């Protein structure tokens, strides 16, 4: 394969569209999970309620569930005639399954435990005394969160974000069922690689894989740098 052929293989419009979807949806899913994962971790650490242990266990479900099972289950739920899908369809005319939105839903589902499980122990370590100290100094609840708690969990949150993002970029099983895999619209890069392999286009598959590898590596490097920055001022106790 010459450089020209390589370039053609990795910049074909259909492949480029898949990069956008894969990296875009993965970043967005990791970002959404950072917000909700932090909330879930917060609730699990700070509140006690009936069924807490069950919820705590359910968080790990995406880890334990075979991805194909997750994919099929999500598709059944979000299909236009599914439990959730038909409400979304009727009320807002929103289509989730077989669209890029479906890809996002699947990536959010598999990424959540990464955030919760990395943030949870750190949050448990934030002593209640720090919040009390801030309260006696006149800080409001929001100020306590923004200036005391959030900076303490930020490194862990970035780690969780990285893990969720990395997992989402490589995710295959749960996505291909719900995505519908329409070229240019809801086709993810890992699927393109598989398709090329099935067509015995080994060099083409490898070329696309190289682009994924390099991009993922660059993004992870960037996130790790951010993490290093945030950790620099957040040393051991």
């Amino acid at each position, binding site marked *: 394969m010459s450089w020209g052929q390589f370039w053609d293989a990795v910049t074909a419009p259909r492949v480029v569209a898949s990069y956008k979807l894969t990296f875009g949806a993965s970043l967005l899913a990791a970002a959404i999970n950072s917000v909700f994962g932090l909330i879930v971790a917060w609730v699990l650490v700070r509140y006690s309620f009936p069924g807490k242990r069950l919820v705590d266990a359910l968080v790990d479900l995406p880890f334990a569930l075979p991805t194909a099972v997750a994919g099929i289950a999500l598709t059944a739920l979000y299909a236009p005639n599914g439990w959730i899908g038909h409400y979304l369809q009727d009320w807002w005319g929103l289509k989730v399954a077989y669209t890029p939105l479906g890809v996002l839903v699947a990536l959010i589902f598999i990424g959540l435990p990464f955030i919760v499980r990395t943030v949870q122990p750190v949050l448990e370590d934030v002593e209640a*005394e720090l919040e*009390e*100290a801030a*309260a*006696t100094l006149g*800080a409001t609840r929001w100020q306590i969160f923004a200036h*005391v708690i959030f900076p303490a969990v930020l490194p862990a949150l970035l780690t969780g974000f990285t893990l969720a993002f990395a997992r989402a970029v490589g995710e295959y099983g749960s996505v291909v069922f719900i995505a519908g895999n329409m070229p240019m619209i809801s086709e993810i890069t890992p699927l393109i690689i598989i398709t090329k392999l099935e067509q015995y286009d080994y060099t083409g598959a490898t070329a696309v894989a190289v682009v994924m590898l390099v991009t993922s590596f660059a993004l992870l490097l960037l996130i790790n740098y951010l993490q290093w920055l945030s950790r620099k001022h*957040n*040393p051991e106790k």
Partner: protein
Amino acid sequence: MSIEVRNVTRAFGNFVAVDNVSFEVASGELMALLSPSGAGKTTLLRIIAGLETADSGQILFHGEDATDTHVGERRVGFVFQHYALFRHMTVFDNIAFGLRVRPRHLRPSREQIRDKVMKLLKLVQLDWLADRYPHQLSGGQRQRIALARALAVEPKVLLLDEPFGALDAKVRKELRAWLRRLHDEIHITSLFVTHDQEEALEVADRVVVMNAGKIEQIGTPQDVVERPATSFVAEFLNLDDHGPAWLVEAKIKHRGYVLAVDKELRHTA
């Protein structure tokens, strides 16, 4: 600004941590709350600060009822045993925190905050540490920074929860002498909790001795040493050898009547 504790009671389940306690800290006084560990003194301090609520009773600052005032509005400086400094902030930012979180119209300007923080750092004699992080300081330095942080918001009263409890013996001695000098300098009404008799007697103007949630005696260090009110005080302060003697449990029988003596009788020599 005086602190008045009026009939405060607080129970955790069956355990009564603070049992109908009343006392007053006079304006400008440095008072110690002395009792063995687990005798409810920290709970009482937290109730005064507003970090904990009492089951019944009142807290008054300068005669004004503050029982239902939110912790952020009580204007109390609170110093924790384990410092509770914000780890991701420099010493400077830690001390400035209370000023920076004020609503915009009450917030001092940058220069004013700077001056104030530097003044406080000088007061606690650590002005060269402004740009360090808490983990780069020794325990004694951390506690002094925590004190400066509490003083930054110009609290009406200062509450210290076992402030020297996490320090080693030598630093503890230095620091309590330093606290005494500091108090002589700024005269803020202060109440500190300790289980160390020596510390209480050496530092405080007056001492409240508590046991099992109740007050045993209130008095100057000289008072409690020379005239311990109960056998507990004498025992706790290690005064057995030269103090008075007590009759603790006794029954008086007379023609079939039995009178139990439930109060301690002190032998006055």
